[in-house]
């Protein structure tokens, strides 16, 4: 199923979805060297974002989080693509400078349909996401 969203950061990639019910703070919340979520008490604490299509409501915390996305990318520990329920500047800017494809505001209730482990293809240039299973 291919659904329309908004294009936030260009490029396309496909991978396994990792879904977070909570917002993510990359600064202090994700280790830039390992890609592991270290935010105490976060539903994804201990999980690694590397190579995943990271699906979460929005970013939060320090604006330095944008730079952490770039560091993850340089260390080959970044998510391959990002889907937000609704983008805010920290994640949008981070995805752009790290060249991670990103879309938000998927049509209808498609966002809620993405489940952990589902294969998802994100096209940030045309603003679409394809939910494959």
């Amino acid at each position, binding site marked *: 199923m291919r659904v329309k969203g908004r294009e936030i950061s260009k490029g396309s990639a496909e991978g396994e979805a990792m879904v977070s019910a909570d917002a993510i703070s990359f600064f202090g919340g994700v280790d830039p060297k390992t890609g592991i979520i270290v935010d105490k008490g976060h539903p994804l604490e201990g999980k690694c974002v590397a190579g995943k299509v990271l699906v979460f409501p929005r970013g939060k915390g320090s604006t330095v989080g944008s730079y952490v996305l770039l560091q993850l990318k340089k260390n080959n520990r970044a998510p391959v693509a990002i889907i937000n329920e609704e983008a805010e*500047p920290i994640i949008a800017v981070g995805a752009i400078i790290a060249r991670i494809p990103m879309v938000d505001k998927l049509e209808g209730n498609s966002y809620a349909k993405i489940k952990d482990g589902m294969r998802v293809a994100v096209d940030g240039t045309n603003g679409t996401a394809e939910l494959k299973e």
Partner: protein
Amino acid sequence: MELTSEQQLMLNGERGEAARQSMEILSALGKIYGAADMVPITSAQVAGVSYKTIGDAGLEYLQDFAAAGARVRIPTFLNPAGMDREQWQTLKVPAAFAKKQLEILSAFSKMGISSTCTCTPYLVGIRPKLGEHIAWSESSAISFANSVLGARTNREGGPSALAAAVCGFTPNYGLHLDENRVANLLVKVEVPLKGTSDFGAMGAYIGEAAKGKVPAFTGVKAASEDRLKSLGASMAAWGSAAIYFMKGITPEWNVAQGAEEITFGARELSAMREKMGGAGKSDIIAIGCPHASLQEIEEVAARVKGKKLKTKLWVCTARKTKEAADKAGFTREIEQAGGNVVADTCMVVCPLEEMGITHAACNSGKAAKYLTNMFKKKVVYGDVEDIVCE
């Protein structure tokens, strides 16, 4: 969003990689906030300068961006850095930190950005006029520019201000538009405000109470620019107010029909001061948040002249203001008492903890907020005459 043909060329990468990336950032932000188009700006102020704030992640980004050919098109200057570029050794800033900080400043300088590192650009000749569009990113400078000068800026982040500087424009939304420069919280001030610290305390109280609303104050008879800068800084630090109005004082005064009304009286003032200030002996007296004006430096110099201070004293300011203080002899008077006039940096962004400092005294509501978080201990809060003793 409506783009001009030049903006479209930038977005397509025909004006280089740095312009393309900047344009992508600006159009994404425009999309997020529903901007109709871009608006040309006359200056930009880039935050995220201190190595303490941005770390290796930020340093690498700035170096990459400079290497990608990023060059600013409009006058652009910096927020305070993590140290005084000239006195860092005297002030005992760790050498490893200094090395990284200098690398950050060098990346900015490659992009053609002025090395003016201050939160008070309006005190050193960068004073946008009423209605002028700008892209600034230090919260107290944003408040002063919007409120006291009537210029127009949103709260930019480091990368978005940098992108705006490279492109020369910013997405036209938020405080760039008349419809959003309207107060919806009317604050009746019913207590005389004595010094800078009272203005800081009122800022802290209203910052917390406003919860995203735009405040408009009545009942303040007079307020110098120094006090307004303290008020705005404190409101932005304790809340998120990026603009306020003050009857008879700020150039704009727009209040929505049916705005919520609250009172700020003697009771609120003393409760807030109680909440902000702790007791005990501090090991640094920090003045100059936002950066001290020449007059504020003169006030400290007059207070300490001929004395020997037992506590470390820092008066933080812009380099140009320090040069004026050097000339006027204020710096020497402060140094002879054992204090320092510190440029380019401030107590909030320099690595005080690494320098063995654990408890501060200050006259700024904004510094009170951040230093309390940093030291996990309430600051000693008061005006210069209360906190600078022998």
